């Protein structure tokens, strides 16, 4: 068997998203982008960059500020045979578009008994850390994961930003891609080839023996950093990144927790009814329950809107030191 050497380069997360868009558009003329300021402006976070110069303003389509209309237009275009990719400038603004996301995109395939599909992608920057305060900083993944008919992915690395987006575009269902705005400038190796991820496959980012940290979005690199600090202190942590919340790879999580006997679940979103409650239940309902040496522990954002002041904003969501502390507590107490 010959080893396949994947050609990788170092790209930022934003560049990786752009490369996925460009490759998908090159491969399939049905793929097009629409959103606010995605054209000459290059996207609110610079993600679409120069795509308008490469693909023209028909396929990189600037829209007025009309989130509901934009998503509705994507639903209609998808029903009529296209593969639209919508950018919503801040994931918070999906609230404006919720009817089209939840009542139209998510349900049409089912309501029509499978007679039509809505192959569209909605990309939206999520999360806090930029001082943009309560209406531009939320982590809303649980909203979408709760709706049958939607798929939800949260890329945490540049390679995943590309591979998960390619998978989302190739998928015949509506897929919500929640990109973290603090990750856009992070760099990492990204394969050149346009190879989509498999949705519903978690990544074990680090393998340890003492506890399993399950983390999403920007909490993945924070958990990895915390794991390094924990290792220096003699605690070996696994870090599992679900990558795709729906479909969820419960098995990889359960397997790792079965091995380590402890689970620390880390999310940026507020704790109450957040996605980590689902992960906790997944573990609790599984045979891993019998292997637990400690109660399942959640480290989440506070149940508050994201505040403006930097010290308040940091206090509202888990930081590396918080993860270290919670992991140490979990291991030392039990």
């Amino acid at each position: 068997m010959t080893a396949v050497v994947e050609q990788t380069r170092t790209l930022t997360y934003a560049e990786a998203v752009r490369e996925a868009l460009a490759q998908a558009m090159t491969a399939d003329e049905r793929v097009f982008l629409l959103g606010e300021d995605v054209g000459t402006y290059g996207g609110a976070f610079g993600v679409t960059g120069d795509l308008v110069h490469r693909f023209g303003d028909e396929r990189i389509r600037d829209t007025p500020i009309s989130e509901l209309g934009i998503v509705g237009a994507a639903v209609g275009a998808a029903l009529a045979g296209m593969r639209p990719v919508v950018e919503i400038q801040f994931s918070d603004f999906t609230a404006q578009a919720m009817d089209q996301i939840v009542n139209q995109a998510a349900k049409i395939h089912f309501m029509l008994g499978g007679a039509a599909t809505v192959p569209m992608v909605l990309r939206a920057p999520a999360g806090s850390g930029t001082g943009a305060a309560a209406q531009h900083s939320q982590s809303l993944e649980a909203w979408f994961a709760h709706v049958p008919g939607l798929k939800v992915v949260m890329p945490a690395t540049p390679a995943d930003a590309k591979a998960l987006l390619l998978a989302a575009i190739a998928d015949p269902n509506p897929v919500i891609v929640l990109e973290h705005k603090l990750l856009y400038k992070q760099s990492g190796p990204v394969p050149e080839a346009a190879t989509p991820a498999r949705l519903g496959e978690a990544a074990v980012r680090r393998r340890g023996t003492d506890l399993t940290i399950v983390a999403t979005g920007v909490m993945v690199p924070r958990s990895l950093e915390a794991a390094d600090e924990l290792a220096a202190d003699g605690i070996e942590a696994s870090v599992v990144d679900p990558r795709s919340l729906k479909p969820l790879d419960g098995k990889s999580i359960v397997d790792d927790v079965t091995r380590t006997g402890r689970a620390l679940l880390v999310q940026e979103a507020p704790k109450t009814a957040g996605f980590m409650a689902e992960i906790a239940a997944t573990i609790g309902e599984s045979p891993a329950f019998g292997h637990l040496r400690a109660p399942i522990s959640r480290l989440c954002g506070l149940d508050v809107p994201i505040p403006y002041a930097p010290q308040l904003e940091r206090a509202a969501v888990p930081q590396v030191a918080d993860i270290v502390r919670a992991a140490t507590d979990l291991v030392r107490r039990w």
Partner: protein
Amino acid sequence: MDLIGNAAAARQALVTMWTIRRFEEAVDDLFARGLMHGTMHLSIGQEAVPVGACLALSDGDYITSTHRGHGHCIAKGARLADMMAELLAKETGYCRGRGGSMHIADVATGNLGANGIVAGGVPIAAGAGLAVKMRGGSEVVVSFFGDGAVNEGAWHEGVNLAAIWDLPVVFVCENNHYGMSMSVSRAFRVKQLSERAAAYGIPGVTVDGNDPQAVHDAVTDAVARARAGEGPTLIEATTYRWKGHSKSDKNLYRTREEIEQWRERDPIARFEQRVAATLEDQEIQSCRDEARDAVRAAVRAAHAAPDASADSLTEAVYAR
């Protein structure tokens, strides 16, 4: 197309109007006898709008529809038996029992779907128009909605997108005078809903929605504009629903006299009078019979079909 003087066109319009009427009367009856569940929004009295509009369309053209969508579905060419099967919760229904009255679509005939959200189909129609334009196609999209939809944000956003991008969409407002119980006189400051078109820089016209010829002429002009790349048009077709909003409606918000006045303007009876010079009495009777027989056959076929099965309920949530 001359729907009055042209015998073939007159016949088609009359048969389709009667088919819609008889279909909905059958639904009303099945409901009353406890054989149909859920709720139902009937368009009895409004038959001229879908018939006049859809006769202006070609195969391959699209429509989006509403919660009151049986007429649109039938006029665009859907199979009656599959529609009735859906309403009777059968496996052979268009949506295999998952959609019911408010979600029937027949993608094969270009019907992109009824919609339980009143303006939900409006931006979807714009998107279908965008797809047509991007593919360089010549199809048009007719977006049907009621007067209740035009105060929702989705309506404004969808119409504006179609307007700024010159999309091949015809917006057809079936102004039946009530958004559930809210009368148009209480819901709008404008005299005619078609005035709204000015705000989007597109043509707007109000026609007699109980006259299939008037609807047809307006939609034909709008379709020609759309196919020529000149963008959307807003057509307001004034009509009236004889029945309540849905099955829960006690009709407390309107008078018997008002309903009677509109029943006297029955679009089907008026059309029959107007085509008397074109179609002989016997021919008109055969149109009625044809519609009645088609609906009866659909009810029979639907009754005989197997019930929708829960075995595969979770399978159609995601496409593979």
